[in-house]
């Protein structure tokens, strides 16, 4: 059986791709990008999740781990997701800045208006 986290992750990516293809507002497109990214982040984080002896895992903190009864989640996916979130924030900030500028020049947030470059 496929774990429900994976299904949720791919569902989120699908929602993001749908929005990316069918929405026309620049801000909605930026949100779509972020939903796709969040889906991938959820997939990565849930890769590190593991159950042992029916105990839910704990955070990967190594001080005093001898006394732990349950497993720890994989630390590497969390590091990856943290890095990826930072990158996502950079893209988001830049995208918002560009959107503000686009609004100044075009007076609208509709991507269909951004069609002056041709040839």
């Amino acid at each position, binding site marked *: 059986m496929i774990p429900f986290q994976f299904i949720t992750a791919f569902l989120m990516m699908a929602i993001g791709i749908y929005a990316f293809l069918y929405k026309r507002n*620049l801000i909605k497109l930026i949100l779509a990008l972020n939903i796709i990214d969040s889906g991938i982040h959820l997939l990565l984080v849930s890769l590190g999740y593991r159950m042992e002896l029916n105990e839910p895992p704990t955070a990967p903190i190594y001080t005093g781990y001898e006394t732990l009864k349950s497993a720890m989640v994989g630390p590497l996916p969390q590091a990856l997701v943290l890095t990826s979130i930072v990158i996502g924030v950079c893209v988001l900030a*830049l995208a918002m800045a560009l959107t503000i500028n686009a609004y100044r020049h075009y007076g609208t947030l509709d991507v269909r208006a951004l069609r002056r470059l041709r040839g």
Partner: protein
Amino acid sequence: MNGEAILPYLIIIPLFGAFAMPIVSLAGKKAREAWAVIISALTLVVASAVFYHVWKTKEIIVYTLGAKTPFGQGVGFPIRIVWEVDLFGAIMVLTVAFVSLMAVLYSLGYMKHDTGLEKYYTLILILELGMLGIAITGDLFNFYVFLEIMSIASYALVAFRNDTWEGIEAGVKYMFVGSIAGSFILLGIALLYGQYGTLTMGYIAVKIAENPTVTAKVALALFIAGLLFKSGASPVHMWLADAHPAAPSSISAMLSGLVIKVGGIYAMARILFSIYSPMAHSIVLKAYLQPYINMSAIGWLIIIFASLTLIIGNAMAVIQTDMKRLLAYSSVGQIGYILLGLGIGLAAYGTQTGEVALAGAIYHTVNHAIMKALLFLVAGVVIHEVGTRNLNELSGLAKTMPKTTFAFLIGAAAIVGLPPLNGFASKWLIYESSAVFNPVLGAIAIIGTAFCTAAYVRVLYTFFGRPSERVANARDPETSMMLPMLLLVLAIVIMGLLPWQISDKVMIPTARMLEQFKFEYINALMSLAGGA
């Protein structure tokens, strides 16, 4: 000289230079410009040292971040981030550092009238840093981080002149396409990590060879899709034709010359040949079996995209009236040649033809970086002096700007592939191998060149035509803009005089190392296991 000792400075120097730039520029304009030139010149020195070391010893440099060996205590597989530089990586490092220095030198004169220049120089150094990182990394997630560093810097630079609608529109388009491509690549990396539990390229190659799964195939599809987006192959080349002309010309030179190659072609070659190595399967299992992933079909897929790109890019270049847009479409066409070489290298893997095609692709990557940088710098000079890039208004430029026209003549002749210049040798290798592999592909390559010739002859015809009043007051530009163009012309001519020497001494060994018949890329990493 120890390759491992100097490798980190390739990242440290531009990183330090980039983030020290706002502080340095408090000391004034001169200090800022001197700092940018010094940092990129130092990077070029380090890059030359790395290239020389790898080329001389023919050994792959493996550098582990923060430890002596990538293997953990008592663990039989690599757990740390590694950088691996083989000859292809070293060649890309050298090209990136050289063209970036030219772009920085050119910016001194070209960007003089703009404001916010400390941000500009910071971004240009970060762009260089991202590309260098992609070329040297041996870790998939590290590769993604550098790819995004490079992409974010280039989105910002395309939209740098935010007082014009053109830059903003191109920047928005470029950013959406680039981000969705980046998401594809991240998903591919996540799938590979979930399946094999490692991110080190060399070790993933071993794992895939031992146990190829459907997940690995899906990840490969995602990588190819994302990287074709990033390299501007048809039918997704539209962002390139918008973004490259809209950027300032020094940035166009870097985008067209470097970004689409390092972020697209190089990364694709690395993933196809080093991670999904067609050879690894039979070496790991110590027996020849039919590979689970049919790499020659993947090769054909790339060939189909390449043929499409080659024809569409070059044909669209012919009908442009905007000079920089013409050059951008020509870049699309040339990416088609490089992809064709790469695809044949994969489809005809293990034969002489495949090796020659791959060598041609690598050679053309370097040549095109130099030629297209030169052409975009010339276009920038024309915009700077005349104030327009509409070809209909530029007739007769040869009279008033003789040196610039000469530089354009050299660049155009090289890109078309005239014999005494560097474009000839690399295109010849690609024609030769494609004609041997499949005559139809050879014919397509020649047709592409015919279109390419038509486009450039049209520009030259305009330049040598009857002078219009618009160009009457144009003059050759100042030294800081002339010097990089001169150096690029020199590079084209010198590389053109020694075509077969470069091909035999550098490009063929590079192709051989990339094909890794002896498992070089993986062995360089795994042989360190004994010392753990």
